[in-house]
């Protein structure tokens, strides 16, 4: 019995080390926060809301359909992005790029990858948070669902999930990409 305990001592030491590495957060390297004073695209990928609004009532007063969700970003007090509205959704999802085909086909608007990116262009700064406001689109007046600030310096490149940021909002997933991710194939200028 004594030998078995002695035999297990190194394994125990190794196991404790593995555990300490796990709880210490040393392994967070892959999701390092974005560097400050750098320009980034921040877009919304997904928003999930609760089944009822913050007062516990159904989203639509006329029927049982879900809310028509859209998101607005403010940065330095200026509206820098407004998403399209997703109808009857408790989980709204947006693509990386959006454009109105009619604009391009009928009005002959110039095409640029930068123009169709569904996101705001912001500079990462400690003093300038991004305000995310979530609305429900309505016929008469859009209803405010929630509004909250996020510290841009806490963002991680790629996708960044914010859980329970406000009442009735379960999660918000943002896309965070550096300007350098812009396509250069079609003559786009890179920073």
């Amino acid at each position, binding site marked *: 019995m004594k030998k078995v305990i002695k035999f297990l001592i190194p*394994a125990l030491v190794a196991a404790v080390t*593995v555990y300490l590495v796990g709880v210490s957060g040393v392994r967070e*390297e*892959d999701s390092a926060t974005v560097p400050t004073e750098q320009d980034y695209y921040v877009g919304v990928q997904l928003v999930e809301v609760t089944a009822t609004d913050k007062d516990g009532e159904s989203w639509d007063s006329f029927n049982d359909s879900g809310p028509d969700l859209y998101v607005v970003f403010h940065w330095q007090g200026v509206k820098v992005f407004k998403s399209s509205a997703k109808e009857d959704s408790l989980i709204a999802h947006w693509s990386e790029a959006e454009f109105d085909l009619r604009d391009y086909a009928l009005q002959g608007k110039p095409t640029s990858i930068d123009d169709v990116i569904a996101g705001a262009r912001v500079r990462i700064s400690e003093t300038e948070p991004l305000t995310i406001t979530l609305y429900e689109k309505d016929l008469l007046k859009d209803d405010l669902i929630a509004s909250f600030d996020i510290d841009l310096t806490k963002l991680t490149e*790629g996708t960044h999930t914010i859980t329970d940021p406000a009442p009735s909002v379960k999660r918000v997933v943002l896309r965070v990409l550096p300007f350098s*991710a812009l*396509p250069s194939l079609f003559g786009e200028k890179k920073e």
Partner: protein
Amino acid sequence: MPLLIRFLLGISAVLLGLGLSLPVMKVIPRLGPFHDYFSFFLKDLNSPQSFSLLEGIRTLTGEGHYFIAVIILIFSVIFPLWKLGVLWVGFSDLIQQKRPGRAFYLAEKLGKYSMVDVFVIALLVVSIKGLPGGSRVVLQSGLFFFALSVLTVMLASWLIEKTWSSQSPNSDESTNLSG
């Protein structure tokens, strides 16, 4: 000397723990000249992925590659831990002037196989470095900790052999302990 050997075995266990849990490699995906274009739409292309040995084993198991997972588990987890345990017990026996068990000699003889997984990783690095599109594999701290663990055990084994040789100069088994 006994204190130093105990210390080396203990350090080796800590290094092994670090080597198993910290990333051994980071894969940086690239798609050659098309990387910028696709990276905007395929977010994974912008996210280097790190893998530790334990994560690798778990991933392989999850994907149904049980054979490879078991091989890596044996050579990178079970065998080093078994060897450390056997050396710890065997060295205690030697200090108490007792004859160590057969496993002690076996651990010494099989010592060189500790490096097999390092060799596998090295091969993997070389093969992935040759991929088109500029994808790269960068070695991470876990590999160095793992290799250091192996080296520390080898040093401890050598010291044990030396200590034992000096204690029992006429013993036939005192030779060839380090494999």
